[in-house]
């Protein structure tokens, strides 16, 4: 019987890990559909930023309540996972609380896990209340219907169940130890310390050892299977951020937020135009292949860079960006969160095609228009409030800008008034129709 349980456990574990590895491979494959971008500079500064923002959650606490709750759940989640290590070893070898040889320290550990589990439970319940009862505005925007809304709640239910299972398992275990049940009892006396689950003991009062064992085993199995399920749910969820927040912050932009990149392809063309000796009609030099003219800007995920695609997978859908966005606050369609979610959803759509056909085949759809509307793109003031607000270092503005570049440079599709301003700049060096020769008139006016 015992050996069958061990085998089943090993199978579940391997299956969970294999499936997870498959998802990670797909994730990396999809991100690599984007253009390469060099963010290997200043590793020290990048590492420090990652430590501060991803590990230290320095941006989360800008909203103190949400930030504090998130830190509890985050720390709790990480620390309680040490316990998973023991569960896995016990599962494979059929042992009971293998780490208990740590003695007094083990008791401290278990006690800490219990307290954290309780705090996580409270935190998650408060999160659920904020989302569903207080109905905080940023959780109810247009883009938060359907899956995104369910996903957020699923995770909360999930964590509640996991924590309850963990505490139930401990309570039953404790009672079994008190009862002196074989396999559970150790010569050293009670192992573990149960500051929270001891309060559950009255619920188990009068149950036979065999019933207790069933409860303990069910809780134990459901807990570990739940964790394996969670691991594989991540890929389909905004909860990927628990893994991706780290690389995402690491690869985020270090330069001032106001600095937008200068397109290299344009640089070359402008150099040619400014160079009086260059012959624009010259045939390419011998042996030099005629390059395909580079596409300016982005109309689909392939035109974005890998960091932008990583951004899309990392987005937690928290909506802090959107709630700070001047366009969104004044009722425009633009929502920087939606920009990120659309990018991810389109990337997933492309990924699904590759899963089916082995390679991407044009499906007649693209990020522009089929996901992100022009009306959204043109509402942006490039104010960087979204970038500043994002707790995981995402840059929605860079995607908006790249898509504007496509609209303007590939499609000549700027809104009319903007096109006029640009013509003015081109002809007379100012966005308004004033003569450049009048530029110093102000000095003579009284």
């Amino acid at each position, binding site marked *: 019987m015992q050996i069958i349980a061990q085998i089943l456990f090993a199978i579940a574990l391997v299956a969970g890990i294999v499936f997870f590895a498959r998802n990670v491979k797909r994730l990396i494959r999809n991100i690599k559909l984007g253009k390469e971008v060099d963010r290997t500079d200043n590793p020290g500064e990048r590492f420090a930023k990652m430590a501060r923002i991803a590990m230290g959650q320095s941006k989360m606490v800008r909203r103190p309540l949400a930030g504090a709750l998130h830190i509890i759940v985050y720390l709790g989640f990480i620390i309680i996972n040490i316990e998973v290590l023991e569960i896995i070893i016990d599962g494979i070898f059929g042992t009971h609380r293998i780490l208990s040889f740590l003695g007094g320290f083990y008791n401290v550990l278990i006690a800490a896990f219990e307290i954290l589990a309780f705090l996580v439970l409270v935190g998650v319940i408060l999160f659920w209340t904020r989302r569903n009862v207080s109905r905080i505005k940023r959780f109810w925007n247009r883009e938060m219907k359907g899956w995104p809304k369910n996903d957020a709640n699923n995770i909360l239910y999930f964590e509640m169940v996991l924590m309850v299972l963990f505490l139930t398992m401990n309570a039953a275990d404790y009672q079994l130890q008190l009862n002196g049940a074989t396999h559970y009892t150790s010569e050293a006396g009670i192992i573990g310390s149960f500051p929270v689950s001891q309060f559950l003991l009255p619920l188990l009062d009068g149950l036979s050892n065999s019933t207790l064992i069933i409860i303990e085993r069910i809780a134990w199995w459901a807990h570990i299977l739940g964790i394996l399920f969670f691991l594989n749910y991540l890929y389909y969820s905004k909860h990927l951020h628990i893994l991706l927040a780290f690389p995402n912050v690491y690869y985020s932009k270090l330069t001032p937020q106001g600095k937008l990149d200068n397109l290299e392809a344009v640089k070359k063309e402008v150099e040619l135009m400014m160079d009086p000796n260059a012959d624009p009609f010259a045939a390419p030099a011998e042996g030099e292949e005629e390059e395909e003219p580079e596409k300016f800007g982005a109309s689909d995920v392939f035109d974005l860079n890998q960091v932008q695609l990583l951004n899309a997978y990392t987005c937690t859908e928290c909506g802090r960006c959107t709630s700070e966005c001047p366009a969104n606050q004044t009722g*425009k369609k633009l929502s920087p969160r939606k920009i990120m979610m659309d990018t991810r959803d389109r990337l997933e759509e492309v990924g699904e095609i590759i899963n089916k056909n082995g390679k991407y085949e044009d499906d007649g759809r693209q990020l522009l228009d089929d996901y992100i509307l022009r009306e959204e793109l043109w509402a942006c003031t490039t104010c960087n409030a979204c970038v*500043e607000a994002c707790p995981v270092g995402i840059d929605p503005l860079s995607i908006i800008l790249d898509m504007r570049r496509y609209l303007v440079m590939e499609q000549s599709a700027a809104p009319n008034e903007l096109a006029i*301003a640009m013509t003015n700049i081109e002809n007379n060096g100012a966005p308004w129709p004033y003569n*450049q020769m009048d530029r110093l008139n102000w*000095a003579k006016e009284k």
Partner: protein
Amino acid sequence: MAEALKVPTMAEYMAEGKKPEVLFWVGCAGSFDDRAKKITKAFVKLLHQAGVDFAVLGTEESCTGDPAKRAGNEFLFQMQAATNIEVLNGYEIKKVVTACPHCFNTLKNEYPSLGGNYEVMHHTQFLKALLNEGRLKVEGGKFKGKKITFHDPCYLGRANNEYEAPRDLLRKLEVELVEMRKCKKEGLCCGAGGGQMFKEPEPGNKDVNIERTEQALEVNPEIIAAGCPFCNTMMTDGVKGKDKEDSVAVIDVAELIANAEDL
């Protein structure tokens, strides 16, 4: 203000074989917009008062390309940049000051990789430096004790992390500095950036400048201080939209300093 201001150009300096301490980059708004021209003049008066040896490009100046770039026209931006850099490098410019955060950001951050490397300062930073060097005196004149709130320009604040220079100057004026609910890193845009200044907004339920003006009015200021000609226009329109133009003025930090002493 009877006589015209003395505003030397780089061409004149060049002809005399001289080099100024700093180039004043006036910008399109500062050159052509009636409201912004007043800011330009106020700043020039302060430069004179502090004895700064400066010059402007005058008719050789052209749009930095900021609105084009942010509207997606990278091509036009880089053409503008190339033209301007040629002029600036031709005059061997080392240091630039401008009263427009958009010009400031573009010149400082986006020109270097195109061959334009200058020390670039926003006028509030420059004035603060003059103050620290003892070249400019800023003290409470007309505005002493007045309730003033500062609206952070996105391209000075968030974009370039400068929140204190304008505030330090206001403090020197001994005004009662009050902060809006959303300020500094979290400051709300006036609605002009990214090319919005030149187009109608997309459909929505409010204009951004009205939202921002409402935030400013929440703290009951007598003056909304600005540091950008575009913010200035937007906030002025917002104040008018709220029928408050008789009780609330929108004034650039440079104007406040110049007017405090009736320059």
